[in-house]
């Protein structure tokens, strides 16, 4: 029981990492990025390729993957999404849907359908091992990284001129433009940050679970769950959302067997949606 709760909280950190990028993109530009999961898995594959082909360790591979994903994020925003943003939410949504299908099939073509796992020393190491409780190092690292990124991001958004301009653009793009903000670049910057974070999430996911080219959809649904529970666009809501989902999943598995654990998690999601349709920490702009 205790084991389930602790592991659930730590797993929640990983889930919130998966959700942050999606939550931010929605909070800032009201865009539901259906390619979020596939972009994350792309990040995982990039980490894998860099570490396998060039022999770098996982940290350096992740940094390279973050850089590549930032560039991809910029291209996606500047050349695909920004072009249709003015035409309403549906065209932008469809663009990301198309991108999702494209990426999943591109990865299938390049990497084949085989299961992969990012090999790392952490996966099998337990930081705490007692008869009642054992904590895996990779879960703990995921959780710590998630907290650091969320706190860091919240500080950037609240305290810096850059963060303020992103919030202003999300709030009233026309007024932001009149204050001298290049709003299209602000959207692109937001997407770049989200993709960088998502690449980190990709590495964490890939070193915790096996993955294959079509894994994206599975993680898109987790990201949806996290973001919906936490409230679209709320950073700390994302962390809480991840933890709620993680704990619900493991307690559900503990009570009813691991076969139905995701079912239990999504029942919790539905209950929360019924009670608080906007999520626990609803906001449409990025706030603490």
């Amino acid at each position, binding site marked *: 029981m205790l084991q389930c709760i602790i592991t659930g909280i730590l797993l929640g950190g990983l889930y919130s990492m998966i959700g942050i990028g999606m939550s931010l993109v929605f909070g800032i530009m009201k865009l539901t990025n259906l390619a979020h999961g596939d972009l994350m898995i792309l990040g995982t594959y990039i980490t894998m390729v860099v570490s396998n082909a060039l022999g770098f360790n996982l940290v350096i591979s992740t940094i390279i993957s973050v850089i590549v994903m930032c560039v991809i994020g910029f291209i996606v925003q500047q050349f695909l999404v920004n072009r249709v943003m003015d035409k309403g939410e549906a065209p932008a949504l469809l663009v990301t849907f198309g991108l999702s299908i494209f990426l999943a099939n591109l990865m299938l073509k390049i990497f084949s359908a085989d299961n992969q796992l990012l090999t790392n020393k952490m996966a099998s190491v337990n930081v705490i091992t007692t008869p009642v409780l054992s904590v895996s190092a990779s879960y703990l690292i995921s959780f710590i990284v998630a907290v650091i990124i969320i706190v860091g991001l919240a500080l950037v958004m609240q305290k810096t*001129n850059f963060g*303020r*301009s992103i*919030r*202003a653009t999300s*709030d*009233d793009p*026309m*007024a*932001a*433009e*009149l*204050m*001298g*903000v*290049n*709003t299209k670049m602000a959207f692109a910057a937001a997407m770049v940050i989200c993709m960088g974070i998502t690449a980190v999430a990709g590495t964490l996911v890939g070193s915790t679970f096996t993955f294959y080219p079509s894994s994206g959809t599975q993680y898109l649904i987790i990201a949806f769950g996290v973001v919906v529970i936490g409230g679209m666009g709320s950073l700390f809501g994302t962390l809480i959302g991840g933890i709620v989902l993680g704990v619900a999943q493991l307690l559900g598995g503990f009570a009813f067997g691991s076969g139905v654990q995701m079912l239990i998690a999504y029942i919790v999601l539905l209950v929360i949606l019924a009670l608080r349709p906007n999520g626990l920490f609803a*906001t*449409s*702009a990025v*706030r603490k």
Partner: protein
Amino acid sequence: MSLLEVKNIDVHYGDFLAIQDVSLNVEPGTIVSLIGANGAGKSTIMNTICGLNKPTKGDIIFDGNNIAGKKANQIARLGLTMSPEGSHCFEKMTVQDNLLMGAYLEKGPERMKRLEDVYRLFPILNEKKNQQATYLSGGQRQMLAIGRGIMSQPKILLLDEISLGLAPVVINDIYDKLQEIAETGLTMLIVEQNVTRSLSVSDYSYVILEGKVVMEGKSSELNESEVNDAYFGIGDFAH
């Protein structure tokens, strides 16, 4: 030399010709007002100058640059700040963050000094600095929008319909502040529906009717009843 010179611009919305051959001049250190009824095209002219609309013909020369067709954020960088109709405060941000956004292009410590100046001008904003803009009253929102405008320390400030929907006593208050701002030498181009107020606050006025300039002159020399005829398109201005 004029600070802002609008030369024979046309503006279309689709096929509809909203603004036809409009020319304006704004001399440095003056307040110029655009007078006209609802739908006359005042806001369209303002939006075209600040880059939210593109003119289909003509030039807009600001401080030596032709800004016609440039993007709004590029024009803002040249020192032309516009406070749009309906104040457009950043609703979910605090009053202070709204003001700091006004000084977005100024990265240095100068911002804090400007912030103090704005708080001195509008003490109510200082009291409410940590509140979200969405909780402000209509008059306070307008003060915030004006304060945000002067935070950028522009060469010219465009104010579109700052009295819209406000109680007369609040309007008086805001215009008193505008006089204070004008005394610092800031050039302004304002849109105001109230003819009497418009003429009393400005140095020079243009009357807009159906997308054209139908009358212009020094505000002190314009005859108010003639301006009213032009405003409504009656008398000599009927067609």
